[in-house]
Each structure stands twice: as structure tokens, then as C-alpha cells.
């Protein structure tokens, strides 16, 4: 679920993102409450219109929030899954899926046990077994074949690591050091046991979010060539082939039985789901707003373009929903450049999030964030260091800057992912606020090369832009990936620590957190770390991205599930017959 | 000119082009007659209205903004009163035209034969095969070697002279009563020019066609024309039988034309005298005599008349056939005492021998004619 997984995805997302000052914190405002009042009904064809093509359909390789959730509802069942809900304030919870329960952790969260159901079947009628899980999980280790994808398992699973930094076990295809893996992941009949190096107290949440731990049939595996192969164990299966650019059609999988699925997360209402990828946002919304023919049965994961806001009125507004996304965007002071804490504090104080969000499109685009963590993530708390009003406090900022001992005006260079008028407007709005406080701002918009440039440790920008969404609903998937200098900072790259933040205090706290077996205790520790980050002004939160969607009029039981990244929940949605 | 009705009779022809700046009077009141088998030479500088007038005879201004008025009577029909379709049926059949630059006048993408056949097919209900036979026949007649082969060549494969011969073949294929040759030799080598003129004369005799030959080359006139019409600024300024005009020109502009012909006979005393100034604007022609700003003799006319009054085209002292548009009272005197000694000193004596008193009689052609005659001898 990372906004930032792929630089280009982030750029594209940012292009449409905008901030708002509407709802605060964890809540959500919505067009009609997010869900549709129409009762679900079985049958019919649902159309899924989208722009971005899915890059992978291989469960071990996919990592985009939308695809992870959707494929989980349709074809790839996991150990656990998220329940259906449209309550925007719902805290995350998991339910058993192919496992009989949500797993049992022992050994301080280092060992997990699941029992695999005996009644679930693949689309060819063969039962889903523990061995299928073991095989599926092993595929991520074949880093020479299965590239990309969320590879947390490489650092978590208790297998010996080679000097190169990668595990010595190299996956099922070459099978070197297979015995290491066979010790770490075992099958005893239907009982799957995983041994981790560190505590992974919320592994069952990760299993629900990601598809890395899903089963895979060895006899269907063709490595790289299987990227778009979909071999289902869910209520649908692919009809024909998946077209990398155009999409595909899902039909009912007759080997799936409701009795084998007690997760209540797959109502499987439509008989057929047709995916069309590669449509321009404008085209998608022209069609959905016009609502004629098949488009009345259409949903999308693309947000309403700001230029179309005025068209969402009357009957169209009844078909709209406005919900929180899991994505937060923020600014990072570059610690190689901006070493003076008071200057960073002044920068924060002078940051006008209201103006920035307005530039992006207002309250349909985003709402001011109080932390780098999204509000519905376990461990979220408003960061107590970010107390300035959303529109900033230039006076206080000025005082801080004058107090810093630096020469004024203080020159800063803001490097951002630009290239569109909206993003340039946003940057200008931010610069305006900073200028009031005594900064002299140089704007440096970059397009394709944005991440390449800001990842260079020698980058001389003072402030850069970033965006992030948790990979599973844990603060542990936010803070270490972004601020642990040991995993990020190398000679040639700062990884995802674009601000070159390096704090031994924070690193130590991260290590402590990793040892905590209890989910809530661990989350509390991370909240502490976030507080420390705030004290250092390691980041400046901008806005929590809003999702603003419109759907076709014949779509029923429409739900934007906060647990499935706020996208339309394919487990619930149906169409009128 | 005989009393018998002429083949072509042009009366008060005017071709005016309306433009954003005003009306361009390219031809402004032109009249002449032409009989079958005879040749009229129209001579003048570029822009004097020669080509515009001949295009008017073919009706080529139809469908454009040009305003054509007057009378063009061909075979008792006024061409200005008939329909476009009737005019079209006469083009190429009753009156044909050949042009100055045969390369650009022939379509580059069609064979010579095709283009000649086309001219035949449009007026005759015959098969393509017959048309082709006829085209080959015509090519043979105009002196193209191996016509049955060359008929399939493209224009660019012909030499300049051959192209003009082919154009003549095209023009004469329907045996038209009137052939208009617009500067037919200008674009050709000197040696080829004479051959083409000779060919035209031969064919004229054979087909008994009337020819209007438009040129600025008095040598061509001397060789070809029976009558000569000198044009200036869209009007006739001197008109009469060829020999008469060339030996006893009465209009200073004609003198100018004669003076500016290079002498190829080798009379080293002869001077080449260009006409000073530029051709007048047809949009705002000079007042009075259009030629007066360039005329070196206008002082010989009393009372600034040249500047104020346009002279009529009237006979002078040489009889009714020789008309001119000039206020000079005694142009002959001036010509023989001032002009001729300058441009052809040797001829002064010749004339003097014929008419010792200096008066004018039937003199031999001026040297330009000699040049043509000499060229004629050289060919064969």
C-alpha cells in the first residue's frame, strides 16, 4: 500500500493530490457517507475502470494497495484478511481466511503458527495445502527471478544471511541452502509454522495486507513468466488471459465454496467483473458522470480530477464518496544542509498547509495531517510537536529564525516533484509562507528524475517533498523504512530517507521497538519515536490525501473500506440486475 | 486589307483587372483585323498587353475577375457573347495557341503523345488509336524524327526545339483557322528560332491559317508578319503593313524598338540605343500620350500636348493603312535625319538612293529583316 513504492506512482498520485482543511485527524467527510444505500444483489457485470495498469499479478510481486486488496477479494485468499466495513473510524482488525484462525504467536512474537483449512480449493479443484503456502512464501527469496514486490520476509525470516546482505537461501528455483528455509518454515500436516529473527507481533496484519504470504502452486510456477498468470483460489477466476496494458475479465470460480470461506469478506455479488486499464482520468469521469450503458455499472479507483468537481452536483453527487486515503504527504528538511534545529522549527512554523492544500484542490483533495502516520494506523497519535495552526505562524517562525543565529534572509532551495501546474502552484503557496518568515526561497521542480536526484546524498536541496502510505496497518511500516539511517543511508543513496536524517537515538528506539512482542506496546514505542522525530523536525506533515470518487448509478452496496486503503471494496460491491 | 470580311476582327477590346489598388487596364481599346493565311505581328515590351489580348481571344479570362469588353469576331461570331461551353468548343479547334516556354507549357507527367492526342480527342469523335496515329502524323509533319517512338516520350525527354515543334503539332492538329503564337521562339536557341519560324510559315501555307505572332523581336516580325501592330501600355500605338511600319515608322516608340535591336550584320557604326525609362504602370498610366515620359521628341510638339492629350490612332502622311498614335507633325523627317543615321548609317544612303530628296518610298527592309534573312540562309 505504499504511495511511494514506485517513484512514478507517487508523482502521478501527487499530481492529483491536494490538501484541505476540512475534517481534522482521523475522521472522514464523505459525499454520502462513503457507502451506497442500495442493497447488494447477486449477478450482473461490474466494470472497473482505471488508468494505471497493474504491474504484477503474481501474488509475491504485487505491492500496489489497490491490487493487493482487489485481488485478495477476487482470486488470492491469504492466511488472514480484513473484514468489510465502511466505518471511517474503524480500527484495523483481521479475520481468518485460508487459516482457521488469525494465527498464534509465541516466542515473543518470533514464531507464528497457522492451521490451513482443508476445504479450500484451487480453481482446478485441488485443495489448498500448507505446502502451497510454504512454496509461495519461498518465492520471494528467488531475488534473481522474482524481482520487485514487498520483500519484508527477506529480512524477517530466520535464515542465515550471506555477506552480500541477502539470505543464503535463494528461492525454490535454484534451491541453494533449501535446508535453511525448510527449518524456518515448516508444514506439519495442515499446520504452518514460521520462525522469524525478530518479533513480528502484527504478522497476521501483514499477511492480510500483502499477498507475499499467499499460497502458490509449484506446478503452475514459471517464475518471471508467471507475472500475469492468475491461478485462483477465490470466488472468481480469470477468463482467458490478463492483458498487461488492457486488463481482463473475472468470472465465477466454480471450485470456490462459500462454506470454505468464513471471513465474510467476499460477498462476490457480480457474476462478472471487467477490468479496463489505461483510461485517462478525464475519460473515466466523463463516462461515469454520463452514466450511460455499461458505465452505469462502473467503479473506479481514480480520484475525480479537480476540474470535474463542479460537475459533481445533484444526482451525480449522490453517487460520490469522499474518504480518507492511507497516504500522507510531507516535507523533509535535508539534514546535510539545514543543520540548525531552530531553522527547521522556523520552517515548520512558517509552513502554510492551508494554502498548500488549497492549491491542490481544497477539501476534496486532502486535509491537514498531524503526523506522518495516517490516522487509522495502529499507533497513530497527533504528534505533539506539530502545534502550529494549519495556516502556519509566520511571526513565531520569524522569531525562531532570528533566534537561530543564522544570517537573514535564510536562503533555502525547495526541490519537489513538479511538472504540473497544480504542483507548481502548491510549491509557490508553500514558498509564500516561508518568505513571510524570512526565508529566501528557490523553487526547484523536477519531473522524472525527482527521486533519482533527491536520493543522492550530495543533493543540495534544503527541503524536499515526500509521500507515504503504510504497507500494513502498522506504524512499524512507516517509521523504520523512512527514518532508520542504517537501512537507508549508503554511499550512493539515501534510500527513502530523503532528508538524510540520522539519529542514533531514533535508531536505538527502533531496535527496542523491534523486540516488543505486544502489538499495542510496540505501537506505543513507535509513537514515542514519532515524537522524537517531531522534536528534531525530521519531517513536516502536509496533508492526508482524500479519496474523492464517483460511481455508476447501478452500483449497489458501494463501500470504500478504510482497511482496503479506502478504495472501493470488491468484496462487497454489486450491481443492479 | 481587303473588303472581304476578315477571319478575325477585334474591335475596341478592353481587358481590365480589378485589384485592391484599382483597375489595371492591361488592354484598353485594341482593334485589328486578320484574314486567313495572313500573319499579324504584335510587338511591344513586356507588360504592354500583347499576351493579355491574345488570351482574351481564346477566352482564357473567363472565370476570372478580369472584365473583357469590346468585340472579338471570329468566323462571324462574337466570341465575347457566346457561352463558356461554346467558347470551349472553339478553343483548340478554331483558334489554337502555342506558348513561349514549351517546357512549362507541357504537363510534366504526361507523354507528349498523350497531350497531343488529348487536343485531338476533345474535338473529334475518334478512337484513341486513331488519335495516336494522327498525333504521330503531326509530329512527323513538324519534323520530329522517329515520331512513332518519340510520341511516347515525356516533355523533359525532348529538346527545347522539339518541344516547341510538338506544341505546334498540338496547336495545329485540329487545323484551326487561327493560330496564336505567343513568343514562340523566345525561349529557344537562336539557331532553332529560325527553324521554328520557318516551320510555322510552311504550315501556314499548308493549312491556310491566320497567325497572330506575339513577340518583342522585330526580326521575327520582319520574317513572319504581313501586318504589324505595335502596342504600348495596353493600346496600339502604330499599326500597318509590315514593310511599311519597318521602313517608315512614325511613332517614337517604334523607333525605340528598332533602335534597341542589336545589329548582327556587323555594321560597326550602328548604335544600340535603349529606350530610356521603364514601361508605365497600367494602374496609373501617364496622362496624355502614355509614352510621353520616355519620349525624347515630345519637345517637338507644341503646347505640352503630349502630356495633356492622348493622341488618336490615325493615319499620317503614309496613307490610310498606316495608322499611329502620335502628336508629331512630321515624324518621317525626324526618323530619317535623326534616328536612322544613328542606328543604321549605311541605310541612310540606301534610302537616299531610292529617294534622293530624302522623301520616302518603298524601301528595302531595314537591317533587322536582313538579320532574319541571313539566319534563314544559315539554316537548312
Amino acid at each position: 500500500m505504499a504511495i511511494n513504492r514506485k517513484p512514478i506512482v507517487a508523482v502521478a498520485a501527487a499530481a492529483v493530490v491536494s490538501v484541505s482543511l476540512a475534517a481534522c485527524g482521523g475522521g472522514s467527510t464523505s459525499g454520502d457517507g462513503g457507502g451506497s444505500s442500495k442493497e447488494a444483489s447477486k449477478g450482473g457485470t461490474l466494470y472497473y475502470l482505471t488508468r494505471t495498469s497493474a504491474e504484477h499479478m503474481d501474488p509475491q510481486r504485487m505491492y500496489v494497495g489497490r491490487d493487493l486488496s482487489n485481488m485478495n477479494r477476487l482470486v488470492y485468499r491469504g492466511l488472514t484478511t480484513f473484514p468489510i466495513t465502511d466505518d471511517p473510524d474503524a480500527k484495523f482488525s483481521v479475520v481468518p481466511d485460508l487459516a482457521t484462525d488469525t494465527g498464534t504467536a509465541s516466542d515473543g512474537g518470533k514464531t507464528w503458527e497457522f492451521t490451513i483449512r482443508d476445504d479450500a480449493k484451487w480453481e482446478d479443484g485441488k485443495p489448498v495445502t500448507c505446502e502451497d503456502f510454504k512454496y509461495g512464501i519461498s518465492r520471494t527469496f528467488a531475488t534473481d527471478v522474482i524481482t520487485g514486490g514487498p520483500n519484508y520476509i527477506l529480512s524477517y525470516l530466520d535464515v542465515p544471511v550471506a555477506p552480500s546482505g541477502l539470505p543464503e537461501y535463494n528461492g525454490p528455483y535454484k534451491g541453494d541452502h533449501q535446508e535453511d528455509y525448510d527449518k524456518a518454515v515448516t508444514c506439519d500436516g495442515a499446520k504452518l509454522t514460521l520462525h522469524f529473527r525478530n518479533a513480528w507481533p502484527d504478522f497476521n496484519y501483514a499477511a492480510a495486507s500483502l499477498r507475499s504470504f499467499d499460497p502458490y502452486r509449484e506446478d503452475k510456477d514459471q517464475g518471471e513468466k508467471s507475472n500475469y498468470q492468475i491461478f485462483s483460489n477465490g470466488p472468481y477466476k480469470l477468463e482467458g488471459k490478463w492483458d498487461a496494458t488492457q486488463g481482463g475479465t473475472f468470472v465465477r470460480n466454480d471450485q470456490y465454496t462459500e462454506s470454505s470461506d468464513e471471513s465474510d469478506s467476499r460477498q462476490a455479488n457480480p457474476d462478472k467483473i471487467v477490468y479496463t486499464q489505461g483510461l485517462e482520468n478525464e475519460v473515466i469521469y466523463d463516462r461515469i458522470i454520463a452514466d450511460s450503458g455499461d458505465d452505469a455499472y462502473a467503479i473506479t479507483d481514480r480520484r475525480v480530477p479537480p476540474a470535474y468537481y463542479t460537475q459533481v452536483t445533484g444526482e451525480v453527487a449522490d453517487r460520490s464518496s469522499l474518504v480518507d486515503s492511507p497516504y500522507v504527504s510531507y516535507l523533509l528538511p535535508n539534514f546535510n544542509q539545514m543543520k540548525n534545529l531552530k531553522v527547521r522549527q522556523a520552517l515548520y512554523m512558517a509552513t502554510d498547509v492551508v494554502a498548500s492544500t488549497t492549491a491542490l484542490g481544497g477539501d476534496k483533495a486532502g486535509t491537514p495531517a498531524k503526523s506522518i502516520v495516517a490516522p487509522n494506523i495502529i499507533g497513530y497519535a497527533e504528534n505533539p510537536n506539530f502545534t502550529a495552526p494549519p495556516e502556519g505562524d509566520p511571526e513565531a517562525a520569524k522569531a525562531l529564525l532570528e533566534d537561530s543565529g543564522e544570517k537573514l534572509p535564510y536562503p533555502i532551495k525547495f526541490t519537489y516533484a513538479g511538472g504540473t501546474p497544480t504542483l507548481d502552484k502548491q510549491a509557490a503557496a508553500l514558498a509564500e509562507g516561508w518568505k513571510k518568515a524570512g526565508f529566501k526561497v528557490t523553487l526547484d521542480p523536477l519531473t522524472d528524475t525527482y527521486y533519482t536526484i533527491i536520493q543522492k546524498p550530495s543533493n543540495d536541496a534544503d527541503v524536499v517533498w515526500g509521500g507515504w502510505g503504510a504497507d500494513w496497518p502498522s506504524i512499524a511500516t512507516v517509521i523504520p523504512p523512512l527514518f532508520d539511517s542504517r537501512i537507508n543511508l549508503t554511499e550512493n543513496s539515501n534510500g527513502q530517507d530523503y532528508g538524510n536524517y540520522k539519529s542514533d537515538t531514533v535508531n536505538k528506539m527502533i531496535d527496542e521497538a523491534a523486540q516488543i512482542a505486544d502489538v499495542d506496546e510496540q505501537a506505543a514505542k513507535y509513537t514515542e519515536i514519532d515524537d522524537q522525530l517531531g522534536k528534531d523536525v525530521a519531517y513536516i506533515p502536509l496533508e492526508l490525501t482524500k479519496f474523492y470518487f464517483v460511481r455508476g448509478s447501478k452500483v449497489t452496496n458501494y463501500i470504500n473500506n478504510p482497511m482496503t486503503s479506502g478504495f472501493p471494496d470488491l468484496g462487497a460491491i454489486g450491481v443492479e440486475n | 486589307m481587303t473588303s472581304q470580311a476578315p477571319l478575325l476582327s477585334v474591335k475596341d477590346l478592353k481587358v481590365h483587372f480589378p485589384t485592391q489598388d484599382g483597375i489595371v487596364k492591361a488592354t484598353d481599346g485594341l482593334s485589328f483585323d486578320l484574314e486567313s493565311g495572313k500573319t499579324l505581328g504584335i510587338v511591344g515590351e513586356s507588360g504592354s498587353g500583347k499576351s493579355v489580348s491574345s488570351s482574351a481571344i481564346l477566352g482564357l479570362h473567363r472565370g476570372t475577375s478580369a472584365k473583357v469588353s469590346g468585340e472579338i469576331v471570329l468566323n462571324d461570331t462574337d466570341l465575347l457573347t457566346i457561352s463558356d461551353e461554346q467558347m470551349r468548343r472553339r478553343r483548340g479547334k478554331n483558334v489554337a495557341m502555342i506558348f513561349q516556354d514549351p517546357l512549362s507549357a507541357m504537363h510534366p507527367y504526361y507523354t507528349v503523345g498523350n497531350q497531343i492526342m488529348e487536343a485531338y480527342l476533345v474535338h473529334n469523335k475518334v478512337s484513341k488509336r486513331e488519335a495516336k496515329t494522327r498525333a504521330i502524323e503531326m509530329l512527323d509533319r513538324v519534323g520530329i524524327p522517329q515520331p512513332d517512338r518519340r510520341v511516347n516520350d515525356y516533355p523533359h525527354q525532348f529538346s527545347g526545339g522539339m518541344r516547341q515543334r510538338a506544341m505546334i503539332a498540338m496547336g495545329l492538329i485540329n487545323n484551326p483557322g487561327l493560330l496564336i503564337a505567343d513568343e514562340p521562339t523566345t525561349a529557344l536557341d537562336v539557331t532553332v528560332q529560325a527553324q521554328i519560324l520557318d516551320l510555322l510559315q510552311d504550315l501556314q501555307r499548308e493549312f491556310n491559317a491566320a497567325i497572330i505572332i506575339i513577340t518583342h523581336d522585330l526580326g521575327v516580325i520582319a520574317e513572319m508578319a504581313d501586318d504589324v501592330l505595335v502596342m504600348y501600355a495596353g493600346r496600339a500605338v502604330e499599326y500597318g503593313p509590315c514593310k511599311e511600319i519597318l521602313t517608315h515608322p512614325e511613332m517614337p516608340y517604334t523607333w525605340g524598338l528598332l533602335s534597341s535591336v542589336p545589329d548582327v550584320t556587323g555594321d560597326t557604326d550602328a548604335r544600340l540605343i535603349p529606350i530610356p525609362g521603364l514601361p508605365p504602370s497600367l494602374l496609373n498610366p501617364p496622362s496624355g500620350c502614355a509614352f510621353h515620359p520616355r519620349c525624347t521628341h515630345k519637345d517637338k510638339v507644341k503646347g505640352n500636348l503630349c502630356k495633356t492629350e492622348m493622341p488618336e490612332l490615325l493615319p499620317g502622311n503614309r496613307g490610310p493603312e498606316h495608322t499611329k498614335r502620335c502628336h508629331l507633325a512630321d515624324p518621317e523627317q525626324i526618323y530619317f535625319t535623326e534616328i536612322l543615321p544613328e542606328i543604321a548609317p549605311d541605310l541612310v544612303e540606301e534610302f537616299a538612293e531610292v529617294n534622293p530628296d530624302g522623301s520616302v518610298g518603298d524601301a528595302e527592309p531595314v537591317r533587322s529583316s536582313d538579320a532574319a534573312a541571313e539566319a534563314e540562309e544559315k539554316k537548312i
Partner: protein
Amino acid sequence: MTAYIIRRMFTGIIMLIVMSMVTFLLFFSSPVNPEDFACGKNCSPALKAQTKKALGYDEPVTTQWVKFAKGVFVGRDFPDDPALKESAPETIAECPAPCLGYSRTTNSTVTEQIKEAWPISLSLAITAFFMWMIGGIVFGVIAALRRGSIIDRGIVGASLVFYAFPTFFIGLFLYKFLAIKWEIVKIPEYVPISEGGVSVWFQGLLLPAFTLSLVYMAGYVRMTRAFVLESMGEDYLRTAKSKGLAPRKVLYKHSMRAALTPLVTMAGLDLAGLMGGAIITEQVFNYPGLGKLAVTATRNFDLPLVVGIVLVLAAVVIVANLVVDLLYAVIDPRVRVG
């Protein structure tokens, strides 16, 4: 003639070789690293290096190019890993000669990808070609014949508008009004003739082809008008008239023939360029042709696909150039090849 063609083909092949080298060099001189894109979540430096190796980008550019060139003649395996081929042959993607590479983002050989996308771009290009040629010539001739009139001004004005507006805008505009709002045409989508028959194929094609043709038509209207006007001033047209030919024949046989001949060169090259994909139109209408493929390949830093498309496009243009030159020699007798 044959010698000429052989000579042209030979220089064409040299050009293709140079182009493939240039594409490789450009790709690797970009500051963006393809492994950053392919290397999944939480990518450690070790994993990044591994990914780079798996993608085959760890070797020097020259080695990569030589392997590519060799693949064209003898084919290649992806990944080129003998150990993997030994232990798990089912994971090896074979790319038989002529192998232009294996695209990891689309998960098939470049040749296959191009083979799939090619007919789609071709359908679009040819349909649009006929539309714009007919429209361009008809409107161009009308404008020339009615020069200065309201009709002429209307046509020239409209073509200026279509010429000036971005294709993207025109496409979205037509999509919105013709397909979505008024439902005059079907929502564009590519349906192969083998699946839906000619009629469905054509209906899906109509709007993209129309959009594309409008953009080109604008240029062709103006060119046709200019060429016709130019030819009407030619001496040979006066000759044709003075022969007594009917105006219709003067126009069609003499004027048009001369006016349209230069269009052949333009049309041939434009068509060839489009066969390589109409990037923006395919993007707007979600038409999975070569243009869209090229965009996807570039966005994903998919070198094999980029190189493959560049080469195919270049080859088409080279061949089209030759064909146009030969054709020109046929239609213009003054031109000789050799």
C-alpha cells in the same frame, strides 16, 4: 533499379544498427536507474544490485548491446542464467531469433509484444490515413477552387484550429461529446476482426481514427489547397485550357495530378510514422497499439521494449522512404532512381 534497392537496404541496415546503439547509449546515460523501478519495496542496496543483475543491466553497455545484436540472429534466453536453466527450466523465457529482447514489464518477448500491438496501430493508421487523405484532398480542392470565398475561409480556419489544438485535447473533446454525451459513436475500444467482425472492429476504431485524421487532415487541407492553387497558375494548365478541354478534365487530369503528386511523399512518410503508433491518440483512447506500448515502455524504463519499438519504427520509416522514392519515380516521369 535492383542495385539501387539493394544499396538503399544496405544503408538502411547500417542506420538500424546505429540507432540501436544510440538507443542503448541514451538509455544508460539517463540518470534514472531501471533497477530502482524494478526493485520492489524496502529495497536494500544488496537487493538492488541483485535486481540489476537479474535485469541484465549489470554488464557494460557494449556487452549488453553485443548480446542484443547476437540475439537478433540466434535468439536468447531470459534470464541468461545457465544454473537456473539447469534447475528450473520452466522459468526460462525463450526468445527465438529474431529476438529483440524480453520485456519484463509486459512479461513476454518484445517480438510478441510488437506483433500484438502492430495490427492495432496499423488498423488505426490505415483507417485514419484514408479519412484524412479523402478529407484533406476534398476540402483542400474545394478551398482552392473557391479561393477567397466564405467556404474557403471556413475550411482554412477550421484546419488551422485542428492544427493548433493539441491532439490530446481534440481526442478528449470528441470522446466526451461524440461517444459519451451524444452517443453518436461507440465507446472506442480495439476489437480484432477475428473476434467481432469487421463492423465491430470498425466501430471501435472510428473515433480514434477520426481524431487522428482530423489532426493530419488539417495539414493536408492546407497543403492540397496550396498545391492546387500553385498548379492552377502553371503554364501547362493554360495549355490544357487552350486545347478546349472541359474544366472538369483540366481540374482532375491536369491540375490535380500535378498538385497531388508531392502529397505522395508526405502521405507515405506520415503513414509510416503512424504505423509506429499514434502515441497521443492511442493514449487518449486507450488503444493498445505500438504508441501506447512505447509510452508504457518508456515510463517503466523497459529497455528491451524501447529498443525494439525504436527499431521497428525506424525500419518502417526506412522502408517507407524507399517505397515512396520508388513510387515517386513511377508517378513523376522526371524522377529516376539509381
